[in-house]
Protein backbone atom coordinates (compact mmCIF):
# COMPACT_ATOMS: atom_id res chain seq x y z
CA UNK A 1 0.00 0.00 0.00
CA UNK A 2 1.06 3.59 -0.62
CA UNK A 3 1.68 5.84 2.35
CA UNK A 4 2.94 9.42 2.38
CA UNK A 5 5.57 9.93 5.06
CA UNK A 6 6.86 13.47 5.63
CA UNK A 7 5.46 14.46 2.26
CA UNK A 8 7.14 11.62 0.35
CA UNK A 9 5.01 8.82 -1.10
CA UNK A 10 6.36 5.33 -0.38
CA UNK A 11 5.25 1.73 -0.88
CA UNK A 12 4.84 -0.43 2.24
CA UNK A 13 3.54 -3.95 2.90
CA UNK A 14 -0.17 -4.36 3.71
CA UNK A 15 -0.95 -4.33 7.45
CA UNK A 16 2.50 -3.00 8.36
CA UNK A 17 2.58 -1.93 12.03
CA UNK A 18 3.36 1.75 12.65
CA UNK A 19 6.51 0.87 14.61
CA UNK A 20 7.80 -1.25 11.74
CA UNK A 21 7.02 1.47 9.22
CA UNK A 22 8.94 4.01 11.32
CA UNK A 23 11.86 1.61 11.52
CA UNK A 24 11.90 1.12 7.74
CA UNK A 25 11.71 4.87 7.26
CA UNK A 26 14.77 5.24 9.50
CA UNK A 27 13.18 7.46 12.12
CA UNK A 28 15.71 8.45 14.79
CA UNK A 29 14.77 9.31 18.40
CA UNK A 30 13.71 11.81 19.56
CA UNK A 31 10.58 12.09 17.42
CA UNK A 32 6.80 12.20 17.64
CA UNK A 33 4.21 11.11 15.10
CA UNK A 34 0.94 12.26 13.59
CA UNK A 35 -1.22 10.07 11.35
CA UNK A 36 -3.59 11.94 9.04
CA UNK A 37 -2.79 15.14 11.00
CA UNK A 38 -3.87 13.55 14.32
CA UNK A 39 -1.19 13.24 17.01
CA UNK A 40 -0.52 9.66 18.05
CA UNK A 41 1.01 9.34 21.55
CA UNK A 42 3.79 6.75 21.75
CA UNK A 43 1.82 4.33 23.97
CA UNK A 44 -0.87 4.18 21.24
CA UNK A 45 1.40 3.18 18.32
CA UNK A 46 0.22 -0.44 18.59
CA UNK A 47 -3.42 0.57 18.18
CA UNK A 48 -2.93 2.32 14.81
CA UNK A 49 -4.19 0.38 11.79
CA UNK A 50 -2.55 1.93 8.74
CA UNK A 51 -4.28 1.92 5.39
CA UNK A 52 -3.56 2.87 1.81
CA UNK A 53 -3.32 6.64 1.35
CA UNK A 54 -2.51 7.49 4.97
CA UNK A 55 -0.43 10.59 5.66
CA UNK A 56 2.27 10.31 8.33
CA UNK A 57 4.32 13.10 9.88
CA UNK A 58 7.48 12.26 11.84
CA UNK A 59 8.59 15.35 13.73
CA UNK A 60 11.74 16.18 15.70
CA UNK A 61 13.15 19.08 17.76
CA UNK A 62 14.60 21.92 15.75
CA UNK A 63 15.79 25.48 16.23
CA UNK A 64 13.01 27.99 16.86
CA UNK A 65 12.34 31.54 17.93
Amino acid sequence: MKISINGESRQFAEDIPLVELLSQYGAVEPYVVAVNTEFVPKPNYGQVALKDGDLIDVVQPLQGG
Partner: protein
Amino acid sequence: MWKLGNKQLNSRLLIGSALYPSPAIMCDAIRQSGSEVVTVSLRRQNPGEGGGNDFWQQIRELELNVLPNTAGCHSVKEAVTTAMMARELFDTHWIKLEVIGDDYNLQPDPFGLLEATKELIDQGFEVFPYCTDDLVLCQKLVELGCNILMPWGSPIGTGQGLLNPFALKTLRERLPDTTLIVDAGIGLPSHAAQAMELGFDGVLLNSAVALAQDPVTMAKAFGQSIEAGRSANLAGAMPARDIAAPSSPVVGQPFWHQK
Protein backbone atom coordinates in the same frame (compact mmCIF):
# COMPACT_ATOMS: atom_id res chain seq x y z
CA MET B 1 13.78 35.86 41.45
CA TRP B 2 10.48 35.97 39.59
CA LYS B 3 7.87 33.41 38.70
CA LEU B 4 7.16 32.35 35.14
CA GLY B 5 4.40 29.75 35.08
CA ASN B 6 5.49 27.08 37.55
CA LYS B 7 9.20 28.08 37.50
CA GLN B 8 11.28 30.44 39.61
CA LEU B 9 13.76 32.30 37.41
CA ASN B 10 16.50 34.89 37.79
CA SER B 11 16.78 36.16 34.21
CA ARG B 12 13.91 37.99 32.53
CA LEU B 13 15.24 37.27 29.05
CA LEU B 14 13.76 34.42 27.00
CA ILE B 15 15.89 33.59 23.99
CA GLY B 16 15.42 31.76 20.71
CA SER B 17 17.64 29.02 19.27
CA ALA B 18 17.35 29.81 15.54
CA LEU B 19 19.38 31.66 12.91
CA TYR B 20 22.79 31.54 14.63
CA PRO B 21 25.91 31.26 12.45
CA SER B 22 26.81 27.93 14.08
CA PRO B 23 25.65 25.59 16.87
CA ALA B 24 28.69 26.58 18.97
CA ILE B 25 27.84 30.28 18.68
CA MET B 26 24.23 29.48 19.57
CA CYS B 27 25.31 27.78 22.78
CA ASP B 28 27.80 30.52 23.72
CA ALA B 29 25.27 33.27 23.03
CA ILE B 30 22.54 31.61 25.07
CA ARG B 31 24.95 31.12 27.98
CA GLN B 32 26.19 34.72 27.81
CA SER B 33 22.64 36.06 27.72
CA GLY B 34 22.01 34.57 31.15
CA SER B 35 18.61 33.40 29.91
CA GLU B 36 17.01 30.40 31.57
CA VAL B 37 14.33 29.82 28.93
CA VAL B 38 15.08 28.82 25.33
CA THR B 39 12.52 28.49 22.54
CA VAL B 40 12.52 25.58 20.10
CA SER B 41 10.32 24.33 17.26
CA LEU B 42 9.17 21.02 15.76
CA ARG B 43 9.84 20.13 12.17
CA ARG B 44 9.73 17.06 9.95
CA GLN B 45 12.61 14.66 10.40
CA ASN B 46 14.85 13.71 7.53
CA PRO B 47 16.55 10.47 8.60
CA GLY B 48 19.11 10.95 5.85
CA GLU B 49 20.42 13.94 7.77
CA GLY B 50 20.76 12.03 11.02
CA GLY B 51 17.64 13.27 12.79
CA GLY B 52 17.56 16.04 15.38
CA ASN B 53 19.88 14.45 17.90
CA ASP B 54 22.75 16.93 17.65
CA PHE B 55 20.62 20.05 18.13
CA TRP B 56 18.55 18.54 20.91
CA GLN B 57 21.65 17.28 22.71
CA GLN B 58 23.16 20.79 22.62
CA ILE B 59 19.99 22.31 24.04
CA ARG B 60 19.76 19.68 26.77
CA GLU B 61 23.35 20.32 27.82
CA LEU B 62 22.46 23.96 28.47
CA GLU B 63 20.13 22.67 31.23
CA LEU B 64 17.55 25.40 30.66
CA ASN B 65 13.76 25.46 30.51
CA VAL B 66 12.49 24.69 27.03
CA LEU B 67 9.59 26.63 25.53
CA PRO B 68 8.37 24.91 22.33
CA ASN B 69 6.51 27.00 19.78
CA THR B 70 3.84 26.41 17.16
CA ALA B 71 5.58 28.64 14.62
CA GLY B 72 4.23 28.40 11.11
CA CYS B 73 0.77 27.20 12.15
CA HIS B 74 -2.07 28.99 10.37
CA SER B 75 -5.05 27.10 11.76
CA VAL B 76 -6.35 26.16 15.20
CA LYS B 77 -6.11 22.48 14.30
CA GLU B 78 -2.45 22.74 13.25
CA ALA B 79 -1.53 24.70 16.35
CA VAL B 80 -3.32 22.40 18.78
CA THR B 81 -1.85 19.26 17.20
CA THR B 82 1.63 20.79 17.20
CA ALA B 83 1.25 21.69 20.87
CA MET B 84 0.25 18.14 21.74
CA MET B 85 3.24 16.78 19.84
CA ALA B 86 5.51 19.28 21.61
CA ARG B 87 4.25 18.16 25.01
CA GLU B 88 5.40 14.60 24.36
CA LEU B 89 8.59 15.51 22.48
CA PHE B 90 9.89 18.02 25.03
CA ASP B 91 8.14 16.71 28.13
CA THR B 92 6.68 20.11 29.04
CA HIS B 93 3.20 21.57 29.28
CA TRP B 94 4.54 25.00 28.26
CA ILE B 95 3.62 26.12 24.74
CA LYS B 96 4.39 29.35 22.90
CA LEU B 97 1.18 29.50 20.91
CA GLU B 98 1.42 31.06 17.47
CA VAL B 99 -1.55 31.09 15.10
CA ILE B 100 -0.49 33.21 12.15
CA GLY B 101 -3.18 35.21 10.38
CA ASP B 102 -1.19 37.08 7.79
CA ASP B 103 1.93 35.90 5.97
CA TYR B 104 3.16 39.37 5.03
CA ASN B 105 3.81 40.57 8.58
CA LEU B 106 3.30 37.28 10.46
CA GLN B 107 0.55 38.94 12.45
CA PRO B 108 -1.26 36.63 14.89
CA ASP B 109 -4.83 35.63 14.03
CA PRO B 110 -6.66 36.85 17.16
CA PHE B 111 -9.77 34.73 16.55
CA GLY B 112 -7.86 31.51 15.95
CA LEU B 113 -5.59 32.33 18.88
CA LEU B 114 -8.54 32.55 21.28
CA GLU B 115 -9.99 29.27 20.03
CA ALA B 116 -6.68 27.40 20.25
CA THR B 117 -5.94 28.90 23.68
CA LYS B 118 -9.24 27.68 25.07
CA GLU B 119 -8.66 24.15 23.80
CA LEU B 120 -5.09 23.97 25.07
CA ILE B 121 -5.90 25.38 28.51
CA ASP B 122 -8.69 22.78 28.76
CA GLN B 123 -6.04 20.16 28.04
CA GLY B 124 -3.75 21.39 30.82
CA PHE B 125 -1.22 23.48 28.90
CA GLU B 126 0.44 26.63 30.22
CA VAL B 127 -0.22 28.76 27.16
CA PHE B 128 2.18 31.58 26.25
CA PRO B 129 0.11 33.24 23.50
CA TYR B 130 2.00 35.29 20.92
CA CYS B 131 -0.55 38.07 20.40
CA THR B 132 -0.97 41.61 19.16
CA ASP B 133 -1.08 44.50 21.63
CA ASP B 134 -4.88 44.81 21.34
CA LEU B 135 -6.30 45.36 24.83
CA VAL B 136 -9.58 43.54 24.25
CA LEU B 137 -7.87 40.48 22.77
CA CYS B 138 -5.50 40.39 25.74
CA GLN B 139 -8.37 40.72 28.21
CA LYS B 140 -10.17 37.81 26.54
CA LEU B 141 -7.02 35.66 26.68
CA VAL B 142 -6.80 36.36 30.41
CA GLU B 143 -10.50 35.51 30.83
CA LEU B 144 -9.77 32.15 29.19
CA GLY B 145 -7.16 31.46 31.86
CA CYS B 146 -3.87 32.74 30.44
CA ASN B 147 -1.41 33.73 33.18
CA ILE B 148 1.12 34.94 30.63
CA LEU B 149 0.69 37.11 27.52
CA MET B 150 3.30 37.79 24.85
CA PRO B 151 2.29 40.83 22.76
CA TRP B 152 4.50 41.78 19.86
CA GLY B 153 6.72 44.87 19.87
CA SER B 154 6.74 44.86 16.07
CA PRO B 155 6.48 42.08 13.45
CA ILE B 156 8.72 39.02 13.87
CA GLY B 157 12.24 39.52 12.64
CA THR B 158 11.93 43.19 11.78
CA GLY B 159 14.04 44.56 14.63
CA GLN B 160 11.97 47.75 14.70
CA GLY B 161 11.48 47.78 18.45
CA LEU B 162 8.30 48.89 20.19
CA LEU B 163 6.10 50.45 17.50
CA ASN B 164 3.23 51.19 19.88
CA PRO B 165 4.50 51.95 23.39
CA PHE B 166 1.11 53.47 24.25
CA ALA B 167 -0.66 50.14 23.67
CA LEU B 168 1.96 48.22 25.65
CA LYS B 169 1.77 50.71 28.51
CA THR B 170 -2.01 50.36 28.49
CA LEU B 171 -1.71 46.57 28.74
CA ARG B 172 0.57 46.95 31.74
CA GLU B 173 -1.83 49.33 33.46
CA ARG B 174 -4.98 47.32 32.73
CA LEU B 175 -3.57 43.83 33.37
CA PRO B 176 -1.46 44.37 36.50
CA ASP B 177 -1.65 40.73 37.63
CA THR B 178 -0.73 39.12 34.30
CA THR B 179 2.83 38.22 33.37
CA LEU B 180 3.57 40.33 30.29
CA ILE B 181 6.46 39.54 27.95
CA VAL B 182 7.26 41.47 24.80
CA ASP B 183 7.80 38.90 22.07
CA ALA B 184 9.07 39.77 18.61
CA GLY B 185 10.37 42.83 16.86
CA ILE B 186 13.17 43.66 19.27
CA GLY B 187 16.32 44.83 17.46
CA LEU B 188 18.45 46.61 20.04
CA PRO B 189 19.14 46.31 23.75
CA SER B 190 17.56 49.75 24.14
CA HIS B 191 14.27 48.32 22.82
CA ALA B 192 14.38 45.59 25.46
CA ALA B 193 15.23 48.12 28.14
CA GLN B 194 12.27 50.25 27.06
CA ALA B 195 9.92 47.28 27.44
CA MET B 196 11.22 46.67 30.92
CA GLU B 197 10.98 50.37 31.81
CA LEU B 198 7.28 50.16 30.84
CA GLY B 199 6.88 47.52 33.51
CA PHE B 200 6.93 44.38 31.40
CA ASP B 201 8.01 41.22 33.17
CA GLY B 202 10.32 39.95 30.46
CA VAL B 203 11.41 40.02 26.84
CA LEU B 204 11.60 37.20 24.29
CA LEU B 205 13.89 37.66 21.31
CA ASN B 206 15.95 35.70 18.80
CA SER B 207 16.95 37.50 15.60
CA ALA B 208 18.42 40.52 17.40
CA VAL B 209 21.07 38.28 18.94
CA ALA B 210 21.46 35.60 16.28
CA LEU B 211 21.82 38.07 13.38
CA ALA B 212 24.18 40.47 15.19
CA GLN B 213 27.72 40.62 13.86
CA ASP B 214 28.87 39.23 17.20
CA PRO B 215 25.94 37.26 18.67
CA VAL B 216 27.75 36.32 21.88
CA THR B 217 28.54 39.92 22.81
CA MET B 218 25.06 41.06 21.77
CA ALA B 219 23.51 38.36 23.95
CA LYS B 220 25.39 39.71 26.94
CA ALA B 221 24.29 43.26 26.07
CA PHE B 222 20.65 42.18 26.04
CA GLY B 223 20.99 40.51 29.41
CA GLN B 224 22.44 43.73 30.83
CA SER B 225 19.85 46.00 29.21
CA ILE B 226 16.96 43.95 30.55
CA GLU B 227 18.40 44.16 34.06
CA ALA B 228 18.88 47.93 33.65
CA GLY B 229 15.34 48.42 32.38
CA ARG B 230 13.90 46.38 35.23
CA SER B 231 15.87 48.39 37.82
CA ALA B 232 14.72 51.63 36.20
CA ASN B 233 11.10 50.53 36.40
CA LEU B 234 11.45 49.68 40.07
CA ALA B 235 13.28 52.96 40.76
CA GLY B 236 10.50 55.08 39.22
CA ALA B 237 11.33 57.59 36.52
CA MET B 238 11.05 61.36 36.96
CA PRO B 239 8.05 62.91 35.20
CA ALA B 240 8.83 64.28 31.74
CA ARG B 241 8.19 68.03 31.29
CA ASP B 242 8.16 70.50 28.45
CA ILE B 243 9.98 73.41 30.09
CA ALA B 244 13.67 73.41 31.01
CA ALA B 245 14.56 73.45 34.69
CA PRO B 246 18.17 74.12 35.73
CA SER B 247 19.81 71.46 37.78
CA SER B 248 22.54 73.76 39.20
CA PRO B 249 21.47 76.19 41.99
CA VAL B 250 20.40 79.61 40.70
CA VAL B 251 21.09 81.31 44.03
CA GLY B 252 24.64 82.65 44.33
CA GLN B 253 25.24 82.88 40.60
CA PRO B 254 28.52 84.96 40.21
CA PHE B 255 28.84 88.10 38.07
CA TRP B 256 25.26 89.10 38.82
CA HIS B 257 24.98 92.62 40.25
CA GLN B 258 21.85 94.66 40.94
CA LYS B 259 21.98 97.94 39.03
